[in-house]
């Protein structure tokens, strides 16, 4: 049975090109359907059409028909579908109406006029289903991202809708938070049979949950819906193991490390490529940058910024205690660690935005910091203007740096767009260009890949490697070990305000419980590109 049906759906935002172009799709009752696609591909619009937010809240030109359990969104407003379909979007901050978790969960029940007894029971059940019963009296503003997002899902689920639509629910969360949210979604689907329509960028955890997947590209369904493995095999943002499986000709491509290990151990496989420490890896064909670390690691230059025994206390809590860190010319340093381990504070201390309570920070060259939220930076009417502003603010004339950074971050085609009209994956790139154009040799990027699609991540990695090889240094604070594996020469792990590991990326990541996927399947390879290069040699 079809839970949500799209029939020839086309949609264009007011004064915009078509965001959806003739979509036909059936979401089966009780399945988890994963929607993937690059930023701006129309997958968000596709999800918003499911409960009528598109076109009822957005305006624009709408063609075709979407039916939700027999009700058409043409004749029903989003609020009239609240009992059959719930909606959760990516911003965990902007979904709470009431300042208490429990009362916010009950919000939809009050609106739909449920009886008090039924409401009470339902709220208790939903709180348990999402594992947030202990947070019931808290103010949502005091919760962590993962807790908040689970609260938002509870709010969407309270009216017992048969379907749940989630637009990148984990893109703003750290891995632990993301995992708790995805686990909750899987449990709802298994226990209650809730139909789930889910859009995601980071697929390592989400893909194994999906019954089917589809790829959206330029407003049309490019591939699928079909079993997740084959659907994702050609998708650039697929999990590393899936791309590894495709490279090695495994069929069907694996979605999890477990599957990949099993496939790798199968008898009769061709011998695995062997790893050669000294040989340089192939340049990345797309960016021309060197895909891995060996050449850059061979020549770390002089120290550009050094922190010695840095201690920082914020609101009576010691955030950093005795941190030593040197950043050298030619390095790309990945700064790893869970939320609250002090990554952001360390970057801000290195950038001189935060005074240290003890110890010293000695910059030998200019240090620039790109904040976590790119939106706090963007104000100009066009991307080009945004980047050029920084040069002007520094009182310099543009010596070609503006054009160079716009190209380096792949913003050439977007240069005359309004920064706010860009997608979540494009905005951080604009912010990075706007800061980097100032010419500081040391670039500190705070969670740059948050909410980014594969293509944007790829461009960013190329730009970071390029900056390092041109004699700069980059420090990336990130949760993403795959990103660290692909572009870092060195990895530093922070925990509880202390450096617990510091060394070459391969060594640090190799000894980790959270090692990148390829390393867990084919050690000591870190990335699919390395395996590819090794296969070409042999």
């Amino acid at each position, binding site marked *: 049975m079809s839970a949500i049906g799209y029939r020839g759906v086309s949609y264009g935002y007011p004064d915009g090109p078509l965001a959806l172009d003739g979509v036909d799709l059936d979401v089966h009752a009780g399945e988890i359907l994963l929607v993937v696609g690059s930023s701006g591909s129309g997958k968000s619009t596709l999800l*918003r059409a499911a409960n009528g*937010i598109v076109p*009822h*809240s957005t305006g624009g030109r709408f063609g075709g028909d979407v039916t939700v359990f027999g009700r058409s969104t043409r004749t029903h*407003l*989003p*609020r*009239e*579908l*609240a*009992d059959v379909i*719930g*909606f959760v*979007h990516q*911003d965990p*901050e*902007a*979904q*709470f*109406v009431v*300042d*208490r978790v*429990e*009362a916010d969960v*009950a*919000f939809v029940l*009050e*609106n739909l*006029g449920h009886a*008090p007894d039924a*409401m009470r029971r339902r709220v208790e059940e939903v709180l348990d289903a999402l594992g947030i019963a202990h947070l019931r009296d808290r*103010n949502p*503003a*005091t919760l962590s991202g993962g807790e908040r997002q689970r609260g*938002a899902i509870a*709010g969407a689920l309270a*009216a017992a809708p048969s379907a749940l639509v989630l637009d990148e629910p984990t893109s703003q969360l750290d891995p632990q938070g993301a995992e708790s949210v995805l686990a909750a979604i899987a449990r709802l689907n298994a226990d209650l049979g809730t139909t789930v329509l889910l859009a995601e960028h980071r697929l390592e955890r989400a893909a194994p949950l999906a019954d089917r997947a589809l790829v959206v590209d330029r407003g049309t369904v490019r591939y699928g819906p079909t079993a997740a493995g084959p659907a994702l095999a050609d998708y650039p943002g697929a999990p590393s193991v899936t791309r590894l499986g495709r490279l090695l000709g495994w069929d069907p491509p694996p979605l999890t490390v477990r599957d990949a290990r099993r496939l790798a151990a199968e008898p009769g496989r061709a011998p695995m490529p062997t790893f050669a420490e000294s040989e340089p890896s192939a340049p990345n064909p797309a960016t021309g940058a060197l895909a891995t670390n060996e050449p850059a690691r061979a020549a770390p230059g002089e120290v550009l910024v050094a922190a010695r025994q840095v201690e920082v206390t914020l609101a009576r809590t010691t955030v950093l*205690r*005795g941190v030593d860190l040197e950043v050298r010319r030619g390095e790309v340093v990945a700064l790893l660690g869970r939320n609250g381990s002090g990554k952001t504070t360390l970057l801000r201390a290195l*950038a*001189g*935005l935060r005074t240290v309570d003890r110890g010293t920070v000695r910059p030998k060259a*200019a*240090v*620039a*910091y*790109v*904040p976590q939220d790119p*939106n*706090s*930076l*963007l*104000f100009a009417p066009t991307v080009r203007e945004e980047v050029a*502003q*920084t040069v002007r*603010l*520094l009182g310099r004339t543009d010596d070609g740096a503006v054009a160079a950074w716009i190209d380096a971050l792949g913003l050439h085609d977007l240069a005359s767009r309004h920064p706010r009209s860009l997608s979540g994956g494009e905005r951080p790139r604009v912010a990075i260009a*706007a800061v980097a154009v*100032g010419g500081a040799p040391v670039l500190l990027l705070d969670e740059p890949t948050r909410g980014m699609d594969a293509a944007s991540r790829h461009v960013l990695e190329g730009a970071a490697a390029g900056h390092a090889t041109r004699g700069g240094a980059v420090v990336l604070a990130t949760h993403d070990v795959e990103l660290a594996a692909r572009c870092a020469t060195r990895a530093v792990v922070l925990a509880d305000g*202390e450096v617990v590991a510091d060394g070459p990326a391969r060594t640090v990541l190799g000894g980790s419980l959270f090692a990148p996927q390829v390393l867990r399947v084919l050690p000591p390879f870190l990335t699919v590109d390395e395996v590819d290069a090794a296969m070409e040699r042999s």
Partner: protein
Amino acid sequence: MRTPTETPRPWHSGAWSVWALAAAACVQLAPSPVYVALVIAVAWLVVEAHAADGPYRHAFPALLGLGVAFAFIRVLIAALTTHNGLEVWFTLPQTTVPDVLGGFTLGGTVEATVVLQSLASGFTIVGMMAVFGAFNAVASHYELVQSSPRAFHELGLITTVALAFVPATIESAHTASESDRARTGGLVVRRGRLLRTLVPVLERGMERAIALSESMDARGFGATPAARTDRVAGWFGLGALLALGGAFVALIGRASPTAAALGFVGAALLVAAVALASRADRRPRYRLRRMEGADWVLAAVSVLAPLALGLCSVAGADSLVWRASPLAWPSFDPLVALALAPLLAPLLRVPDPLWRRRTAIVAVFRRQNSGGVVA
């Protein structure tokens, strides 16, 4: 460890409202700085004991700060524009504003009596803001909305949602100004800085508002169509507005009987509209908490404070109001201080006693210290 069942329930928002009104009345009845300071101290204690974690906790210091700013401006204006020639401190150069703008004198003599008197009246503003800030920090706005007449439900809900934007906006302004510094590598460029920080804050607020409205829409806000009684209530409300407006015009025109009649009709229509609209909304509320015995007691005890001050005033207690001329220290009357004691009533039942919190802070401090030794 305490089990959750032992945690006393927080006071009802209705009881908090009465407490806040009583405290505000006390500031008005006993504006002498000594007693205002006492009320502020009580408000601070109440916030420390009752405010839950979350952005509203900061309402108290924020509104207190705002009160201080108002008071300061008031003192400045009074010092520059009011002159009585008594107790002159020093003399500033003076100019007279053109007649079009009022023709008063700016600057000139600055007198101790004027400055101190305006300081005292400014301090009552600080006291009022402290009470208002304490109320915002301790009472649940949503509970207030839930227990108010149904007719005000949607309006009240929208107000609480709007209130929630205040701390978020302050935070995003903070981030924006820091991002602006980060952009230039720490170099502060003042030119155009307002625009560079204001635009991100406004756009972020806009995006947040849209996301929230979509979330409310998807969760069935306003799903029930307007009932017939709703429309009737709407017309009644419009009628009430017209009648009250007419009464106001009549009052200015000194047509007292007409004003009284129109005022009466307007008030009646307003009551009818509220009653009708409240009856039309039959949707049950989730776990609606009613005022319990203890809440009524708190409300009743709080009201004792202004009543007692009123009695003091009738009895001729002359320390209630302080005047700067002739110059003298404000006097203190223990009886008046005792009259303020009922405002401490909320402390009789505290969710997390202060002493418990202090031990917790000490524990954290010890842990940090020992951590430092190990490192």
